[in-house]
């Protein structure tokens, strides 16, 4: 009846996951009770859960990523403490628990922090920057978000029901095969990634279509803001690469569920095929994450330097070059696994070549800053911090791209330090820069600068105190994923790294405090103009937060940095000219399709993990029925009457006019 599920699945003998699970459960229950008692449930349902508004979905993506960042960060703290204490002792985490923690840390940080954070920012900003009213497929967008949330839910469920994979974040066979991992851990891993992978794929299709098909009048390709270009490149990579992940995990699941032999050592299988395929996805994935961050830095650096982006066309070219070359380098993840010198040499050279477009970008940002009037607001601090950090990470990456060096450094702490160096210093710093930069746009008030700057400095310094020791430990021969060790020389560096982790944690706390303080002071921090940073692209041309339809009139773009030119040349005409007649606007209706679909997907995923076959059928039928109901809908749009559009738009215009007259008087 319940497949493999029984009471032994709950880890009553392990206090850490049980207490952590209980605390999280109580917190969720408390929030739910508060929502219901206060009567916020209808608001949440109508305005957020069923929303198909790209801005709301973007915010929900970022919220999911932030919560998961705390979960993944807790795993990181536990690992650093373990390695600081586990010198010639067992530490406080038993091996099977430690293995689950590093696997969950990697899985969560890549799939449920970095991915939703960048997809959330793209969702929030790209339609605004393109000057359009929504993404190409609004309901599909909601489905994509909720399926991602399903994946995150399943991963966290493994904390208290059953176990998570002990295989590392990519679940290499034969360790992840049935004979070495008979439990449900790998199944939790694979099904949550399969379900959230569908969500990511539809988000990718949606954003590619949006950039290619929905641009406002005059917004041709070479007038698009840089962030739209990197969004296009990143989502092209999603569409091209995620099917490889899905197929690879499907083969692993066939091995585990139906006795296939794709990745076993017997019956003609080949485990190396898994490494090959997973990295054919895995390397483009790195650029899926970092390209949007490059776009964010381009926007931030140009805005806070008060200059147009230096070398816009070379930036576009570099972005698209990275997009293509990222598919030619994946073997550098397994240089040591047997390929001969000719194969290794070609992939090594390709890996070094990809550093060239990245270097072009760094120089472009530096030249954008050169001669500019730089304002060091928090987003700009994250951007400059990124340049320093990312260059170090990039250089150690080029070092690792040299096959002989890689033979020495493979699987060492040096590698761990390298990829944290590029992912924290590139993706996470970018996500934080974007968060600080676009927060006023999403909510209508700025974030507190003092706490934001404190958060930056603690994170920045904490990062170096944590990861420079890991580089050194790697040089001293320490391998990754060690539950305990007996080499005295490594010990001091592990203690320094743990101290650095404490500084990093203070940085995270500063950012949480920043959010709380800013919400409390929101009246003082209110942005009434819609343009708090003196921005250059179209998202600043509408109010903060933007109305549901984004723009009363779709903007007419005449060049790069569209909004900057409107402000500089045609400011008066554009804002004060006699507006043409306001017209009715059609917007897509909210739909519970995404939420209901993800609800059934969660049931199906859980049942598949525990082999509860009747429930699999139930969940599958439910998800399919949801799709059928949506496909046979009668009307999916509603009309905002012209008077309402006019009323909303006039309020915004009043604010802007007063801003202009104030600027004129000053």
């Amino acid at each position, binding site marked *: 009846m319940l497949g493999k599920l029984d009471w032994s699945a709950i880890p009553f003998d392990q206090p850490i996951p049980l207490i952590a699970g209980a605390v999280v459960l109580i917190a969720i229950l408390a929030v739910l009770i508060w929502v219901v008692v206060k009567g916020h449930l209808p608001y949440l349902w109508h305005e957020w859960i069923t929303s198909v508004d790209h801005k709301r979905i973007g915010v929900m993506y970022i919220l999911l990523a932030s919560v998961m960042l705390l979960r993944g960060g807790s795993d990181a703290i536990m690992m650093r403490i373990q390695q600081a204490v586990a010198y010639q002792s067992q530490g406080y985490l038993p091996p099977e628990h430690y293995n689950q923690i590093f696997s969950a840390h990697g899985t969560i940080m890549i799939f449920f922090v970095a991915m939703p954070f960048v997809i959330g920012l793209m969702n929030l900003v790209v339609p605004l920057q393109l000057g359009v009213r929504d993404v190409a497929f609004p309901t599909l967008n909601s489905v994509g978000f909720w399926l991602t949330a399903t994946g995150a839910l399943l991963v966290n469920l493994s904390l208290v029901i059953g176990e998570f994979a002990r295989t590392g974040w990519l679940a290499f066979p034969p360790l992840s095969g049935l004979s070495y991992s008979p439990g449900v851990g790998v199944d939790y891993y694979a099904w949550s990634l399969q379900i959230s992978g569908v969500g990511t794929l539809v988000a990718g299709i949606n954003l590619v279509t949006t950039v*290619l*098909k929905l*641009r406002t*009048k*005059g*917004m*041709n*390709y*070479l007038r698009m803001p840089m962030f739209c270009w990197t969004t296009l490149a990143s989502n*092209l990579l999603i569409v*091209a690469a995620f099917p*490889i992940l899905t197929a690879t995990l499907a083969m692993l699941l066939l091995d585990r569920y139906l006795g296939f032999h794709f990745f076993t050592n017997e019956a003609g299988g*080949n485990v*190396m*095929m898994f490494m*090959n*395929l997973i990295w*054919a996805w895995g390397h483009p994935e790195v650029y899926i994450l970092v390209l949007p961050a490059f776009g964010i830095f381009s926007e931030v650096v140009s805005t806070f330097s008060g200059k147009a982006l230096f070398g816009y066309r070379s930036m576009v070219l570099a972005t698209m070059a990275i997009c*293509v070359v990222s*598919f*030619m380098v*994946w*073997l550098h993840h397994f240089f040591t*696994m*047997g*390929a*001969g*010198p*000719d*194969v290794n040499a070609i992939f090594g050279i390709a890996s070094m070549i990809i550093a060239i477009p990245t270097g072009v970008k760094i120089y472009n940002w530096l030249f954008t800053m050169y001669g500019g009037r730089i304002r060091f607001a928090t987003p700009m601090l994250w951007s400059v911090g990124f340049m320093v950090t990312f260059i170090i990470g990039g250089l150690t990456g080029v070092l690792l791209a040299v096959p002989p060096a890689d033979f020495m450094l493979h699987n060492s702490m040096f590698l761990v330090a390298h990829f944290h160096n590029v992912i924290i210093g590139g993706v996470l710093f970018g996500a934080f820069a974007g968060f600080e930069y676009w927060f006023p746009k999403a909510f209508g008030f700025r974030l507190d600068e003092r706490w934001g700057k404190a958060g930056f400095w603690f994170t920045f310094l904490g990062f170096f105190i944590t990861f420079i020791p890991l580089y050194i430990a790697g040089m001293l021969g320490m391998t990754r994923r060690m539950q305990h060790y007996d080499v005295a020389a490594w010990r001091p560096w592990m203690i320094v790294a743990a101290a650095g982790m404490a500084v990093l944690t203070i940085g995270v706390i500063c950012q949480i405090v920043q959010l709380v303080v800013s919400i409390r002071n929101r009246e003082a921090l209110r942005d009434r103009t819609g343009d708090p940073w003196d921005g250059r692209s179209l998202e600043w041309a509408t109010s903060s937060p933007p109305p549901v339809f984004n723009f009363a009139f779709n903007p007419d773009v005449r060049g790069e940095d569209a909004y900057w030119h409107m402000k500089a040349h045609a400011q008066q005409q554009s804002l004060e000219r006699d507006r043409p007649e306001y017209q009715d606007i059609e917007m897509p209706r909210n739909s519970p399709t995404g939420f209901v679909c993800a609800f059934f997907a969660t049931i199906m995923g859980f049942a598949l993990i525990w082999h509860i076959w009747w429930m699999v059928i139930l969940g599958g039928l439910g998800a399919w029925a949801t799709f059928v109901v949506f496909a046979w809908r009668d009307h999916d749009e509603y009309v905002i009457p012209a008077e309402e559009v006019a009323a909303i738009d006039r309020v915004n215009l009043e604010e802007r006019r007063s801003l202009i007259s104030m600027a004129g008087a000053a």
Partner: protein
Amino acid sequence: MSDQTHMPAGHDLAPGDEEQHSVGTRILGYVVGLVLALLLTATSFFIAGTDLVWQPSIPVALIVLAIAQMGVHLVFFLHITTGPDNTNNVLALAFGLLVVFLVVGGTVWIMAHLNANMPPMDQIMMRQ
């Protein structure tokens, strides 16, 4: 590419929408596609089992027929044309082909060289 954005919205059509022909013409297109696809499939099955042709040419013939099949699907069912508002579709197809070529070609190449630093099994045996 940039021409596209200056067109009135009515001309920016999704794939499949661009032919404003009558229903009859469109159905004819699908029928031609179906017949061609069936013909290519039948030929593949025939070639695979026949001894009328030089045997080593059979795999090559099957590959050619498969590629032709893909072409028929792209032209008649997915409506890839060389028309001006098909630039995106053609570029997407080219990008897709490039990625497939890189991943499949790279995989074959890598998997064929995996044992480059390993002596063959019989040599290991002989040394012992």
